[in-house]
């Protein structure tokens, strides 16, 4: 075997000297034979002739030896490549079209695959990330601290279970300039379960947790340390203020560690037992307070199904022991990274749909190239015939054609891939929402490159085999006799026609789905949110960061409301702890008034809870349907016993049966409190634009003393002016207030993120599809016109009008376009169901969408056939007849 390898290299690298040696050997053989013959008594010339005959021709023997030599295939391949390169260089237009088409097709696939890979296929970037799972109950993927502790201590299938809480930003005071940062509050075993080693200093461990508020430590992310402490190693041991509490920096995480959520990289990690300190509210003490994500590492050789069974055994125990909070609780596992199934499930569906569409793009591109290559093979029929007549084998010609296809495909793949790497790098550094540290790490990895290469090779095979039948059938004698332009009946359905129909159908599917998505986005922008974000400016602040606590908070909030309402041009101002359609938002169970057993299965509704000031309704533009608004005087009633509340229409229908019955009605909620409905407001959107209608309840802000504060300010003045006035007025009250002032429409970026991404992604794919349809129809139409130019000239000479000329030249292509479009539209309507999960009211049964697709395909036909039509109409009989 080593001998063969040596020969292979010798044959490839020193081809000339190997050839030379063979020549010498054959020459010497001829001489030996000649000598033999001379000895037998033949004259020298005759002896040499006989010798050559006996050898059987030097050239023939040489070819035979060359055929068995190692590396023969590679040598042929190299020759094929050189030849393919030369032929392609001779028709740069064809080569360029083919390469660009493939670059687009493969590039689109590489981008989509890379995102799919980063979000769904690739385990998160921690050691042995593949056996890490998120533990989630059905519904919202969060658990309470007490349930987490029971799960952690009672399960037998996990090496460890860690929990973390993602709250909003906290104020960080590093001495001098306070700023905000997004923390991850993690259980003590967090870093140990994930298997992360500190970059500097140490991490906190389970042994640091000695009860609530026992571990005032903070771990910095590498990025935060780099950005705020300039890589200063002496920060270890220093104290920083977090929401005015003192924390000691104990370590820095390695640069590659971004937490366990793909979209959210925490700036700092704080022990979970410090959550009460940071948020001034102990959310860890209630079993019904679901605010933790739980992630765990399976023990070796434990299957996920075993783990689920084990967790559910603990769940059954929880359900029996704490029926009030946990009745019927169950668990399932999900891959970490996308907030369990909350984001994961729709993301998976959407990415699968997108991957399918991208695959269709490539298929359309292959159909397009297949017909291009078939046309080219037809035009090269003379060359092929000549080669066949000269004794070339058909297999050899086919290999040549495939090599050409492969060369085009690899070039297109390389260009497409480099383009997509650029796009992916931009995507990875993109921060879609300005004030939330969300980014999408979708850097390509080896898998992306391999997939792109495979796609290139597979597509080369796909479109490369299209002309095979043509070559196999070719009869050199026929072709050379009648010339390449041998009339093939245009009325017959050829393979090319079929390919064009397929391609147009695929493109129509893409155009349909992108129109459905874009239309859905437009609709969701116009739909009724339950508030009017136009002309509203938001002021966000956190009073706890500014050092307020207890009753001072609501007192300060009232002073802020008064100050803002006296600004000229402000028509209404209100307070809300959270805004609908922003990142946060709490929901909780509510019970009928007669319920005394508050177990989860007895609830009447799962309602959104908001805390607002009376001015909120006017400022937000939310209509009151019945009853009265909240007043500041409501607090004088004994609100500890019976709280006054507004509910939305859905809440009224769900809990009381009708809007009228709701007024004056009572209900109970978490903690056994009772509430009385004083008014009913219109329905709105609360978490996402695509949600089913949710019930919502609005309590008075005076009951909350909540530190996150959002002022909703409605004013007709221009936003820049009003922002200045707001800042002046509020800093007049307290110059230390951290303020974020922005229009409400900017805040809605979060809610519109998913539909926007969907619309852009599908829009781009639709555009690609449309481009491919144009090139496909254009290719066929111009091919037909150029083939039949002479016939057209004769028709014109015989008195054919423009209409006839156009019909003969373009009728065929147009009817194919029509068939393809209809088929594609039907398929697209079926496919759009996938979209309805992401895009609000995505329905193809919309006259705008149907009309849009028809118009788009018509436009595509028009654009594609414009130039061929001009050429056909310009057919000049004299010129054409003279030419041949």
């Amino acid at each position, binding site marked *: 075997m080593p001998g*063969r390898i040596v020969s292979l290299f010798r044959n490839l690298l020193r081809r000339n000297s190997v050839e030379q040696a063979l020549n010498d050997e054959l020459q010497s*053989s001829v*001489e*030996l034979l000649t000598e033999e013959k001379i000895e037998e008594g033949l004259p020298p010339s005759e002896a040499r002739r006989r010798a050559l005959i006996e050898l059987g021709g030097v050239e023939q023997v040489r070819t*035979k030896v060359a055929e*068995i030599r190692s590396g023969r295939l590679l040598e042929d391949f190299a020759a094929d490549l050189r030849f393919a390169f030369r032929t392609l260089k001779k028709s740069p237009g064809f080569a360029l079209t083919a390469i660009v088409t493939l670059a687009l097709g493969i590039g689109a696939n590489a981008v989509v695959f890379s995102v799919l890979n980063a979000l769904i296929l690739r385990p998160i970037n921690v050691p042995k990330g593949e056996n890490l799972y998120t533990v989630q109950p059905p519904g919202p993927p969060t658990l309470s601290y007490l349930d987490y502790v029971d799960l952690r201590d009672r399960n037998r299938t996990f090496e460890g279970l860690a929990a973390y809480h993602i709250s909003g930003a906290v104020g960080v005071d590093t001495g001098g300039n306070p700023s905000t940062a997004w923390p991850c509050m993690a259980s003590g075993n967090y870093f140990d379960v994930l298997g992360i080693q500190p970059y500097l200093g140490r991490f906190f461990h389970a042994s640091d947790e000695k009860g609530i508020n026992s571990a005032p430590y903070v771990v910095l992310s590498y990025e935060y340390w780099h950005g705020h402490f300039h890589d200063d190693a002496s920060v270890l041991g220093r104290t920083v203020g977090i929401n005015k509490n003192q924390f000691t920096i104990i370590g820095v995480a390695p640069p590659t560690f971004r937490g366990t959520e793909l979209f959210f990289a925490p700036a700092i990690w704080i022990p979970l037992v410090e959550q009460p300190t940071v948020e001034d509210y102990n959310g860890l003490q209630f079993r019904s307070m679901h605010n933790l994500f739980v992630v765990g590492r399976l023990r070796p050789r434990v299957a996920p199904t075993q783990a689920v069974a084990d967790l559910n055994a603990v769940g059954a125990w929880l359900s029996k022991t704490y029926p009030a909070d946990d009745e019927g609780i169950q668990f399932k596992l999900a891959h970490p990274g996308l907030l369990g199934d909350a984001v994961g499930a729709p993301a998976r569906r959407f990415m699968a749909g997108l991957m399918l569409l991208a695959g269709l793009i490539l298929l359309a591109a292959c159909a397009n190239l297949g017909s291009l290559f078939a046309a080219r093979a037809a035009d090269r029929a003379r060359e092929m015939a000549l080669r066949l007549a000269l004794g070339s084998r058909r297999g050899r010609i086919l290999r040549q054609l495939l090599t050409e296809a492969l060369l085009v495909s690899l070039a297109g793949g390389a260009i497409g891939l480099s383009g997509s790497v650029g796009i992916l790098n931009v995507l990875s550094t993109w921060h879609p929402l300005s004030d939330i540290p969300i980014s999408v790490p979708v850097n390509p990895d080896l898998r992306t490159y391999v997939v792109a290469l495979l796609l290139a090779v597979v597509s080369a095979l796909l479109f490369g085999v299209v002309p095979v039948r043509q070559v196999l059938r070719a009869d050199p004698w026929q072709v050379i006799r009648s010339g390449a332009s041998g009339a093939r009946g245009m009325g017959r359905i050829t393979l090319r026609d079929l390919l064009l129909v397929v391609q147009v159908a695929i493109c129509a599917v893409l155009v349909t789905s992108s129109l459905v998505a874009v239309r859905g986005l437009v609709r969701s922008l116009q739909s009724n949110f339950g508030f009017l974000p136009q002309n509203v400016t938001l002021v966000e602040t956190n009073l706890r960061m500014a050092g307020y606590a207890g009753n001072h908070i609501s007192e300060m909030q009232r002073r802020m409301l008064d100050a803002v309402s006296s600004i000229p041009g402000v028509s209404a101002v209100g307070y809300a702890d959270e805004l609908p359609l922003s990142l946060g938002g709490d929901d909780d169970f509510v019970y009928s008034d007669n319920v005394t057993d508050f177990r989860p299965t007895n609830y009447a509704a799962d309602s959104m809870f908001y805390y607002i000031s009376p001015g909120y309704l006017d400022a937000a533009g939310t209509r009151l349907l019945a009853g009265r608004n909240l007043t500041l005087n409501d607090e004088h009633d004994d609100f500890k016993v019976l709280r006054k509340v507004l509910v939305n229409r859905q809440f009224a229908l769900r809990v009381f049966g009708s809007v009228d019955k709701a007024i004056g009605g009572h209900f109970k909620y978490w903690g056994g409190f009772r509430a009385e409905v004083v008014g009913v407001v219109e329905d709105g959107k609360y978490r996402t634009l695509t949600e089913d209608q949710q019930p919502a309840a609005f309590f008075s802000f005076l009951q909350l003393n909540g530190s996150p504060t959002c002022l909703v300010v409605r004013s007709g003045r221009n936003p820049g002016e009003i922002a200045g006035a707001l800042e002046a007025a509020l800093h007049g009250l307290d110059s230390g207030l951290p303020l974020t002032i922005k229009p409400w429409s900017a805040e809605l970026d979060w809610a519109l993120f998913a539909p926007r991404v969907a619309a852009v992604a599908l829009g781009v794919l639709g555009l690609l599809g449309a481009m491919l349809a144009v090139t496909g129809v254009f290719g066929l139409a111009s091919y037909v016109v150029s083939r039949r130019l002479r016939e057209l000239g004769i028709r014109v000479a015989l008195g054919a009008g423009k209409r006839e000329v156009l019909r003969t030249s373009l009728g065929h292509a147009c009817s194919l376009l029509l068939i393809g479009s209809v088929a594609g539209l039907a398929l697209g309507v079926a496919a759009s169901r996938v979209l309805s999960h992401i895009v609000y009211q995505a329905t193809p049964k919309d006259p705008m969408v149907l009309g849009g697709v028809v118009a788009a395909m018509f436009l595509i036909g028009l654009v594609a056939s414009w130039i061929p039509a001009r050429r056909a109409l310009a057919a000049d009989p004299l010129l054409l007849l003279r030419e041949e």
Partner: protein
Amino acid sequence: MSEKRTDLLRGTLDLLILRALNLEPLHGVGISRRITQITKGAFEVSFGSLFPSLHRMEEKGWVEAEWRASENNRRAKYYRLTALGRAQLKAEEREWNQVVKIMTAAVESA
């Protein structure tokens, strides 16, 4: 001439070449002559089959070649069996004898 067997099975040709080279190194023409001689004129190998076979055997390492002067003082490429080639010859002879035995038994049984 035409009834002489020239279209040998490839395996048979290899065996004959190995056999021919077993005694002494030979050049291509010499191998052809030696085969005719040891088969008592029954086989005449065409050079179109002989040279590809020789080159294949050289790549496999069964034979090695060197240029030297012929008996008439002409430069010629001489092939010589290697140790590997000798082992191959033994194996092929064994195999051939077995085939002969089996075929003889089969033909005589009928």
